[in-house]
C-alpha cells in the first residue's frame, strides 16, 4: 500500500502523519508512508485543505485528523 500524507509543517499535518504511522503499525499492513510537502505536488491531488491522506493515489481524507480507530477502519477497506 502506498500512503501519502499531504501537508506542510502545521500541527494537524504532523498529527496525521503520527496517527497514520500508528494505524499502519497496529494493523500490520505492508505500506510505505511518505510526507508530501511540496505545494505543486499537493495540488496534483486536487486538495485545497491540508492535511490530506492519499492511499494508492486516491484522496480518502482532507482537512481533518481522524481518530486512530476511524483511520484503521478506513485503511482496512
Amino acid at each position, binding site marked *: 500500500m502506498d500512503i501519502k500524507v499531504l*501537508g*506542510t509543517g*502545521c*500541527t*494537524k*499535518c504532523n498529527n496525521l502523519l503520527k496517527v497514520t504511522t500508528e494505524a499502519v503499525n497496529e494493523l500490520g499492513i505492508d505500506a510505505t508512508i511518505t510526507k508530501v510537502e511540496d*505545494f*505543486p505536488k*499537493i*495540488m*496534483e*491531488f*486536487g*486538495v*485545497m*485543505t*491540508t492535511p490530506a491522506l492519499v492511499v494508492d493515489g*486516491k*484522496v*480518502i*481524507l*482532507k*482537512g*481533518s485528523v*481522524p*481518530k486512530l480507530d*476511524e*483511520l484503521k*477502519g*478506513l485503511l482496512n477497506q
Partner: protein
Amino acid sequence: MSQNLVLSEKSNRSWLLPLLLLPIWILLYINLQPIADYLTDTVLGLSTGTHLTETIRFFIFEVPKVMLLLVAIIFVVGMVRSFFTTEKTRKVLEGKSLFAGNVMASLLGIVTPFCSCSAIPLFLGFVEAGVPLGVTFSFLIAAPMINEVALVLLVGLFGWKVAAIYVATGLFIAIFSGWLIGKFKLEKYVEDWVYQVKTNHEGEQEQKLTLNDRVKSGFAAVKETLGKIWIYIIIGIAVGAGAHGYVPEDLMGQLLGKDNWYGVPLAILIGIPMYSNAAGIIPIVSVLIEKGVSLGTALAFMMSVIALSLPEIIILKKVLKWQLIAFFVGVVAMGIITVGFIFNYIMV
C-alpha cells in the same frame, strides 16, 4: 466536509441529542445570575458589596455565560459549515466578476470551513480554477477575520452592537481590499510557478450527508474549537473581572486613547507582528479597553492581529511577489485604520 466521511454510520439518532440538550441549555442560561449569586453569597459566604466579592461574582457569572454561548454558536456554525466545502465555494466563485465576486467571496469566507494553515493550497486551488485574484483575496481576508468565536466574545464582553459593527466593517474591508487588488490588475505579481500548477479535479463528487452527519460535525466543531480556546476565554474573563470597577488611567490610555490621532495606526503597527487567533486576542483587547484605550483603537488592534500577521505574510511570500504583499498589507491596514477612526470619532 471530509471529516464526515469518517463520522457517518453507527448511531442514527444523533439529531435527537441537541433537542434534548436545548431545554437544559436554556434553563441554565436564564438562571445564570441566581446561580452565580447563590454560589457567591451562600456557598462561598462572601459579604456583598466589597470589591473582591463583586469580582468573583462577575467571574462566576461570566465564564459559564460565555461558555454556553460559545457551545451553542460553535455547534450551529459547525452544522451550517457542513453545507459548505472549499470545492463548492470555489465553483461558485469561478470567473465571477469584480465586486459581485468580492461580496460573495467575503460572505462565503465566513461560512466555509477554513484553517489558516491551508491558506496556500486554497490560494493555488482558487487561482488555478480561474477564481479572479481579487476575489480570492476577499475570501482570504474575510475567513480568518470574521469568525464565530470572535463574534461570541465580542457579544459577551462588549454587547451586540459592537459585535455587529465588527462583522459589518470586517466584511467591508474584505470586499474593498479584494476589489482594489482586482482593479489594479496585480496578477503579474503572483509568482510565475503558481500559474503552472495543475490540479486534478477528479474524485470531487459530493459526499451525501444526512442530518445525523451534520449534527455530528456540529459536536465535533464544539469539541475541537473549545478544546483549543477555553484557556484563553478563562484568562480573558479573569482579567476583565479583575479590572472590573477599577478606573485606571495610565500610559497606555494616554498613548492609545481617543485624543491621539495616531492611536489607531500605532495599534495596527503593534498588531501586525503579533500572531494570535480571535480567542487569544480578546483578553488583551479587554485589558486595553479597561486601561482607557478607546474602542476603535482596540478593535483596530484586534483586526490587525487576526487579519495581518507576520507568519502569514512569510507563508504568502511563497506564492506572491513582494509588491503584491505590500499592496495587500497596505490596503488592509488602511481599511482597518478607517474602521478605527469611524469607531473613535463618529460612533461616540
